[in-house]
């Protein structure tokens, strides 16, 4: 790098973050989010006390009920139910707002907005200046999409935030996921954090040795090489893990400890989930 290039690269004002920095931030955020979920899963709320199998089946039933609904009132009713569950499970409102509602509204909202003009139907208003017709069907369609996506995302987040991940994985057995699938998922989740750490270390070490900015082609070469290094590290890692497993007696069969026991409160909770999901479907069907 020449002196001129170094001088040009000197940060005199707030500069745009390089792809290396942005990747480091993204990887750190993923780790942070997951640690927060683990912390919240161990608090003393309503959902946290329920058997994970009941939660997985119950939340899935509510998700399907929200997906099946043809009435905005029913979707909003389910959304209110999700809010109540969040409150009783000590999930802070700002977590829901920050992690789900605002991102979903920004993405799905922007995506759904043109539909109010493009959907054919009965015009209810016209846009000033442009004269585009807003149709009743367009507004309904956009509302269906936004409320449904918000409700479904809230249920999914509640399940993740109120259940330790090991329990979520074991609970997948009730959905007939094979044991080996559950073990692979569990190990994947565990090694994601190691890989995130390795990737972050790689980018940080590169960042700390870098002066100025890389050119576009160099950045792309660095990105390709980083993925390649990570790839060869994963093969080495998987060999090490395999040898470690073999030395501990692994012969190909996998088992999980099934420590879940259904209590009376769990049966009650299951009935509660079934009742709400069933009621939503029936009300929707009648209207």
């Amino acid at each position, binding site marked *: 790098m020449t002196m001129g290039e170094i001088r040009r690269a000197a940060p005199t004002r707030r500069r745009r973050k390089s*792809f290396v920095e*942005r990747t480091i931030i993204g*990887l750190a955020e993923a780790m942070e989010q*997951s640690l927060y979920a683990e912390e919240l899963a161990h608090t003393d709320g309503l959902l946290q006390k329920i058997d994970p199998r009941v939660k997985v089946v119950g939340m*899935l039933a509510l*998700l*399907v009920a*929200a*997906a099946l609904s*043809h009435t905005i009132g029913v979707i909003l009713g389910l959304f209110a139910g999700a809010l109540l569950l969040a409150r009783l499970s000590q999930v802070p409102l700002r977590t829901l707002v920050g992690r789900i509602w605002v991102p979903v509204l920004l993405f*799905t909202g922007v995506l*759904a907005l043109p*539909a109010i003009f*493009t*959907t054919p*139907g009965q015009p209810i208003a016209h846009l000033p200046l442009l004269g585009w017709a807003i149709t*009743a*069907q367009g507004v*309904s*369609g956009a509302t*269906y*999409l936004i409320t*449904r*996506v918000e409700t*479904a*995302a809230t249920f*999914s987040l509640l399940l*993740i935030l109120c259940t330790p*991940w090991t329990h979520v994985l074991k609970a997948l057995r009730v959905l007939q996921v094979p044991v*080996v699938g559950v073990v*692979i998922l569990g*190990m*994947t*989740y565990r090694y*994601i954090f*190691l890989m995130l750490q390795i*990737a972050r270390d790689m980018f940080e070490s590169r960042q700390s040795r870098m002066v100025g900015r890389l*050119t*576009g082609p160099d*950045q*792309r070469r660095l*990105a*390709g*090489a*980083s*993925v*390649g*290094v*990570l*790839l*060869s590290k*994963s*093969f080495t890692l*998987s*060999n090490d*893990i*395999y040898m470690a497993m*073999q030395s501990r007696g692994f*012969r*190909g069969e996998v088992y999980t400890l099934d420590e879940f026991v259904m209590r009376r409160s769990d049966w009650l909770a299951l009935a509660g989930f079934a009742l709400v999901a069933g009621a939503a479907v029936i009300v929707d069907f009648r209207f």
Partner: protein
Amino acid sequence: MHIPDGYLSPSTCAALYAASAPFWYVAFRKITRLLSTRLVPLLSVFAAFSFVIMMFNLPLPGGTTGHAVGMAVSTIVLGPWGSILAISVALLIQALFFGDGGITAFGANCFNMAIVGSLVAYVAYRMIAGRAAISSPRRVVAAAVAGYLAINVAALLTAIEFGIQPMLFHDVSGAPLYAPYPLNIAIPAMMLGHVTIAGLAELVVSGGVVAYLQRSEPGLLKITAPGAVGEGDAEVVQRGGWRVARPLLILVAVMMILSPLGLVAAGTAWGEWSPEDFGNAQARQEIQAGSGNVAPPAAVPPGLAQVAGVWNAVLPDYDPFQSGDVNIQRIGYVISALVGGGLILLSFLLIGWVAGRMGRG
């Protein structure tokens, strides 16, 4: 690209779960037989790798950044069946723990990205790479194009799944219940982002990784390179496949632009005459000129007249942009996607070259 819950109807989700199930079953059987006890650690770590690279911010030509799915990378290194399983596991973890992609839409996301994406990447890579040596720049081009095609086919499938929702699922007033845009809006809207940013991200990561592995770990490229000709081209390895591959990439871009233009170009391709051409004086002249000055028969050959009606409504005159037929419009989108992709690829390569020259100057 990751479809969230609420965009697809439960019946579409169920159909796509059902469509994915046989692929998962076959992939699982094949990989278990191949890897035996190594299955669990290898698949777990590779799924974790797939997850992590989906989070990378990849620098793209033109200064922007994008995320890749890594379908071609997984396929080239693990083979298509291993890739199907690894990406499916990564997608499930994303849906379950990170809220990226819906739980009810998991089958659809797997079908589009893990299954179709991996298979398209595999076919494209094998076809373009042929029997080229492991260190050949042709493999870099093959990987880059495989990644680009895989993500665009996956995006097209996603757009079709979105686009059929308002046709099939609406309330009594006609308001769409799920994704609200019909095919003629969903397909161009979806393809625009993927032909450009997302496609380029996939292209950069696929080509870049293969170029890197050629230099440092060529052994990892052997699974999907049976019959590759012997090594010995050490110079290519030293120079780096990416740079050597650039002229080939330009050639691919030019071909992508020219091939669809060839289809819509003026005149009729030899042998692709319609019954009407035999009655048209100008068309008769063209046929004669292109057939070694042998005059075409005065009347329509009876065989052609008989079979011409069997298949005449799908692509009349390759004139997709002026037709009201939805099928033709769809073909038109694919053609425009290819032309657009090639143009963008070429223009970014040009920008990169000019920027490089200016930077050196």
